[in-house]
């Protein structure tokens, strides 16, 4: 009997996309292998923070994990390319890119460099701006706001290019920082806004969808090599099922973002394509030049080409 320690970072509740997906993976894999493969789920970062989990995958101490793009960047920087702001026109295009040849090439290079096998991408959802000062309709409205970002240069550039003051605060400290007004606002997807009840201290949300952020389902290659081809196929299929559930739940939240957040008492601002363009014009070049420095112009071009292809 082989045990798969499966780690993720959402609370261990069934209304959380990652946890529901992980439980489905467990049920499928244990059933399909008649218990030959046992799956232990470790929610809420029980196995350690993101960089610890990434190292665990490399070392083979953790067999499988779902990590968001920001948590992968320290181990495999090219993943930051997905944070190019305002790059994906819609979800259909995003999914096509996440499942297509761009993903396969990305996964192959990641495997060579890190010994981590990327099985697939699910959604962490579209990221939006929230704050407790004023509705944000144009970049000028961000001027002078203290906005929390995750500790990542991409997000610092994004925020500063739009005129806000970026403060890097860890996820764990964010609810307190918002409650106490240490920062005025932040940016996150609906799932995260709900998971940490961020709406309690944020009155305004602008559904600009600046980044389409991803969650990667990854398996330790050291572990993968110990599996029989049949077992590998079961893990693959189980992951596809999990990704289906994960995407379904996140997409439902993304598509109903306006009504979900309005129900929580937030003032929802939506943007016309022209208004989004005003944000894109400022943010995309600033982040793009940084990304080209960090991960290479080729990768950035490849992504943009893939997006264009997928949009046809």
């Amino acid at each position, binding site marked *: 009997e082989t045990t798969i320690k499966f780690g993720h970072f959402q609370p261990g509740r069934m209304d959380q996309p990652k946890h529901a997906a992980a439980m489905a993976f467990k049920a499928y894999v244990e059933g399909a292998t008649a218990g030959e493969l046992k799956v232990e789920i470790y929610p809420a970062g029980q196995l350690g923070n993101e960089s610890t989990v990434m190292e665990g995958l490399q070392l083979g101490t953790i067999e499988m994990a779902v990590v968001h793009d920001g948590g992968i960047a320290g181990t495999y920087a090219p993943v930051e390319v997905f944070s190019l702001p305002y790059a994906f026109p819609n979800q259909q295009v995003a999914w096509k890119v996440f499942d297509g040849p761009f993903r396969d090439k990305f996964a192959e290079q990641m495997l060579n460099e890190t010994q981590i096998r990327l099985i697939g991408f699910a959604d962490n959802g579209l990221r939006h701006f929230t704050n407790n000062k004023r509705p944000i309709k144009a970049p000028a409205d961000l001027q002078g706001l*203290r906005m929390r970002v995750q500790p990542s240069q991409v997000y610092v550039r994004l925020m500063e290019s739009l005129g806000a003051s970026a403060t890097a605060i860890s996820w764990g400290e964010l609810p307190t920082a918002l409650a106490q007004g240490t920062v005025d606002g932040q940016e996150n997807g609906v799932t995260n806004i709900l998971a940490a009840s961020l709406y309690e201290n944020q009155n305004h949300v602008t559904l600009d969808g600046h980044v389409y952020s991803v969650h990667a389902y990854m398996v330790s290659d050291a572990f993968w090599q110990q599996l029989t081809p049949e077992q590998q196929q079961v893990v693959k299929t189980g992951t596809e099922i999990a990704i289906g559930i994960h995407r379904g739940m996140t997409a439902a939240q993304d598509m109903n973002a306006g009504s979900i957040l309005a129900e929580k008492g937030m003032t929802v601002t939506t943007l016309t394509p022209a208004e989004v363009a005003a944000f894109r014009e400022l943010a995309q070049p600033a982040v793009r030049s940084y990304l080209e420095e960090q991960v290479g112009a080729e990768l950035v071009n490849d992504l943009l080409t893939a997006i264009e292809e997928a949009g046809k």
Partner: protein
Amino acid sequence: MVASIDRTIIRINGWVIGIMLMVMLALVCTNVVGRYFFLYSFGWIEEVSRYLMIWIVFLGAGLALREGMHVAVTLFADLSMELKPAFKWAAWILTFLFFAALAWYGYKYAMFAARQRSTMLQLPMWTIYLAVPIGSVMCIVHMVLDLLNPKKDAEEAVEVAE
């Protein structure tokens, strides 16, 4: 000779820690002032000050061990005067072995992570992970120096605690 080498090592070790703590304090205060008065904070400060703290912890472990700032349970060792030296030696050897192993595995870990970069400043992570093996080596250095050049005060403190 040993005594003067010992004094120098203790002094340098102490200064390094004191200065790192001072820099940490200055950095964190800079960001508070920056955010409130200039609406600007440096994203890298969180990262640098965190790594400074980690260096302080591991570089300070050996010296803290000598200054009696590590809690240990000496109650059982104190039960019998005859057995006490045996307990003391056993504890010394186990502690030595632990730090020797940690120095080795800490080095291997730093090498394993050779290509990782920090998120904000893109610092190579091995420069920070090296705190573990270097701190462990310092622990061993202090343990050996303490054997060669034992401190009187610590002895007295132990006597009194009985």
